[in-house]
């Protein structure tokens, strides 16, 4: 399933960002899971756990998987509204001419790391 390749990408990004920050240990990573992706959060957590032994900096990291709701911007009225289910439409004027602006990504948002520098 694609949760496996997604977990691998998340770990790679977190490790790269930690290295760039001069960190030797990552304590916590916040990951935004877009609702539109239909990612099984349990399955993603399972693969993060399984694959992280390849990354020494991530051995004890807590991954916080936060669901991100879908938001759309309306091309008719310009409003940005949250969506509760499929069949997206503007929450303000009802137009179907919309663009998804949030909830379609799996994003490594930010993290807490431990560094040596003073």
């Amino acid at each position, binding site marked *: 399933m694609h949760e496996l*390749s997604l977990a691998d990408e998340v770990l790679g*990004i977190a490790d790269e960002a930690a290295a760039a*920050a001069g960190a030797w240990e990552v304590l916590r990573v916040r990951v935004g899971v877009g609702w539109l992706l*239909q990612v099984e959060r349990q399955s993603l957590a399972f693969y993060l756990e399984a694959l992280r032994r390849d990354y020494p900096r991530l051995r004890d990291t807590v991954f916080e998987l936060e669901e991100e709701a879908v938001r759309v911007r309306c091309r008719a009225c310009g409003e940005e509204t949250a969506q509760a289910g499929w069949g997206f439409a503007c929450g303000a004027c009802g137009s179907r001419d919309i663009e998804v602006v949030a909830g379609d990504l799996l994003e490594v948002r930010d993290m807490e790391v431990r*560094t040596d520098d003073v």
Partner: protein
Amino acid sequence: MCETHAEQHQHRHVEVHRHAMEANDQVAARLRRGFAARGILVLNLISAPGSGKTALLERTLEQLSPLRVSVLVGDVETERDAERLRHCGVPVAQIVTAGTCHLEAGMVESHLAEVDQRELDLLIVENVGNLVCPSGFDLGEDAKVVLVSTTEGEDKPLKYPAIFHRAELALVTKADLAPHLDFDREALLQNIQAVHPGMEVLEVSARTGLGLDLWLDWIRAKVGEKQSLHV
């Protein structure tokens, strides 16, 4: 934390804001620019295993002439689909993903050399049979086309909404079988519209040829649109 070294151990907050598909999306953007520069229309065909992607192409590729067409076909194993399609007289490259359940932009890019892009109007990508994983991987295509067969049940769009949301066209395949099944056509069409209001839907049969002219017209119109942008 150990006391003596406490002053050396700094906790830091790091903003990252990078997303898991970014590597794929970068390659896809590069592919899309290349296709645009050459005026090539690219379609990404996605369905559950066995919904009839290859059968549909077998029936329609020849009729697209004089358009110059190539096909990239993804499968987890074997060259069987490519061999079936080579009988249609168009260049076909098989991408064997060796376990991966979807095509990625990098796989398309590395097989493009097998396709002569200078002599091309249309590139059709038959994705790996899978309704979930391929939907999130941009291949630089102009449109995704989702296929759902009459044998699969009316609730497919509700169970796999992401692909129905992202695809531009839905093909209801194996229409010839509908009379033999408890197939609720209205429910399927309603479910498609519930997920993707206004979605274009065509009903086709690779067996009897029903609806294939509309599918060919849809492709030709798309190729025309793309070429009008490419002056």
